[in-house]
């Protein structure tokens, strides 16, 4: 059995065929390629079947250098990941996680992995040991360097319900940013564009938080697929401010693709969301890094 072939025709079920998925030119801006404790490289290779099967054109891993649990601590597989980012550059890119609790060390890591390495951006992970969110002044030197490098800036955000009294965001981890933190940071850097990850965690609230801040884009991976969520985000923000992520392998491409495929977006807008918007955002650093791509 050809592992890329579908046994039945998806078009018979109101779904795009694999050819149509390929034609969407899907760039997965939220790829947990190496986010495994025991065998990160094995996970990466095992997941490639699904990358190819679902027609993903480019995967952008969030774990280039260190791990999400310890972004600034070198990982044993760092060299292998770095080599893969060079060897597989036709379809694989990386952004490197940083920790605003340690701005100097974060900048040093950006120098190593972006200026002198293959990466195209940075990621703020979901919490940190010093409890420093992305709105803290610590972040300013990080953002200034990212701007100089033309790096993309992805910020994990959530609004977990919890606390006493219970409320959205009061269940977040120490240092886990909210969409409000992203807006506060984006106001200080109005000429820099930021990606607010996970649609703020709670999309009904997160979308409205970032709406007035035009230099904030919204990525909506890593949460359950809620019918109507992408339509809502497109109405409030415009399709130009949405970027797609797959969040695999912990999330299913089926989950994340369905969010867009169920929406009422036009074909042209789907092309933007699935990859066009991110390619425009990342074009300067893709060119700087010599990564082959077509807008």
């Amino acid at each position, binding site marked *: 059995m050809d592992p890329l072939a579908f046994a*039945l025709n998806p078009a018979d079920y109101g*779904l795009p065929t694999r050819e149509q998925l390929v034609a969407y030119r899907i760039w997965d801006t939220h790829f947990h390629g190496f986010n495994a404790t025991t065998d990160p490289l094995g996970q990466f290779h095992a997941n490639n079947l699904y990358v190819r099967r679902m027609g993903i054109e480019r995967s952008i891993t969030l774990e280039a250098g260190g791990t999400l649990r310890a972004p600034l601590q070198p990982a044993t597989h760092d060299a292998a990941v770095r080599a893969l980012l060079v060897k597989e550059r036709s379809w694989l890119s990386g952004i490197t996680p940083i920790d605003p609790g340690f701005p100097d060390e974060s900048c040093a890591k950006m120098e190593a992995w972006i200026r002198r390495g293959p990466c195209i951006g940075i990621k703020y992970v979901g919490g940190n040991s010093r409890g420093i969110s992305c709105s803290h002044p610590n972040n300013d030197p990080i953002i200034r360097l990212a701007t100089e490098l033309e790096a993309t800036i992805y910020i994990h955000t959530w609004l977990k319900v919890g606390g006493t009294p219970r409320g959205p965001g009061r269940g977040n981890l120490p240092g886990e940013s909210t969409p409000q933190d992203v807006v506060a940071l984006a106001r200080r850097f109005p000429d820099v564009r930021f990606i607010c990850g996970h649609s703020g965690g709670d999309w009904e609230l997160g979308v409205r938080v970032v709406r007035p801040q035009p230099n904030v884009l919204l990525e909506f991976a890593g949460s359950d697929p809620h019918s109507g969520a992408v339509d809502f985000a497109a109405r409030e923000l415009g399709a130009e401010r949405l970027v797609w992520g797959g969040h695999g392998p912990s999330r299913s491409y089926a989950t994340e693709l369905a969010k867009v495929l169920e929406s009422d977006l036009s074909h042209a807008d789907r092309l933007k969301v699935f990859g066009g918007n991110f390619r425009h955002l990342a074009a300067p650093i893709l060119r700087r890094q010599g990564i082959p791509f077509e807008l």
Partner: protein
Amino acid sequence: MNTPSLPRRRFLRQTAAAGAVVALARAGAPTSPPAPAPDAPPGIVDTHVTLFRWPFRRLKYDATPALVAKLRRHRITEAWAGTHEALLHKDLAGANERLAAECRAHGAGLLRPFGSVNLAWPDWEEDLRRCHEEHRMPGLRLFPGYQTFDLSHPDLGRLIQLTAERGLILQIVFQMEDPRVHHPLLSLPVIDARPLVPLLERTPAARVQLLHFAGNVAGTDLRALVDRTGAWFEFSRWEGNGRLGQLIRPGPGGARPPVPESRVLFGSHAPYFPVETGLLRLFESPLDAETLHALMHRNARRLLPA
């Protein structure tokens, strides 16, 4: 400036080329197919849809005619429908009556009503009787947590026994939405599946299906349910790339799969989830046609004949 070197895109295009003409021609065909031909693609039995208003926001397809049209567009030929009213309403007799009427009025042969009883409310056995005898429902759906009981409730064994005696299917919903995005006023317990195991062992004739169930992190509850009971499952909560295939296909060296393919049914969790999510899961995992037929309709037909 764009670069001419695009090996990845070229690879994708080349691997997509086989059958592309036929597939694209089909994709552009009229959306209303003619009467099914003998070799027509199989229809799907969706064992997990829910009618009426979700209590916390309007859903895109919460109007039944719109939901039915949406399901038909995706070749879903039968849908087992519960009611969102059963989550918080106290008058479940009224909720069940409205569900039965809605399925008759708008279902057009597609919707099969699954009413509900609430073990925490009085006279639930009469609700069960009405669902079966008056509304001719093929089964019931429970929403533990929302209905303020969990699976250690002392009456659950009796409910399982009564549904078995009447030949009813009992569906149990383990989660409706991610607790991280619950309305702050809502504080629901995590539903522990383990009390089900001895109850189902004592009632082997029971036909119980777990909805939106992934099991605990260690997988011990899923394993116990698979090994010691005859419970059925749907896969709307089986998250992760290829997860469906990984759970039902033999492992390396022909190792037994975690869940027998014969006990897994299609469930979309629409209209809360997009119908497309469940459909795409069928194609994401490399499954052969026989397995797809089993998941799409054959297993459901064994649990509930047409």
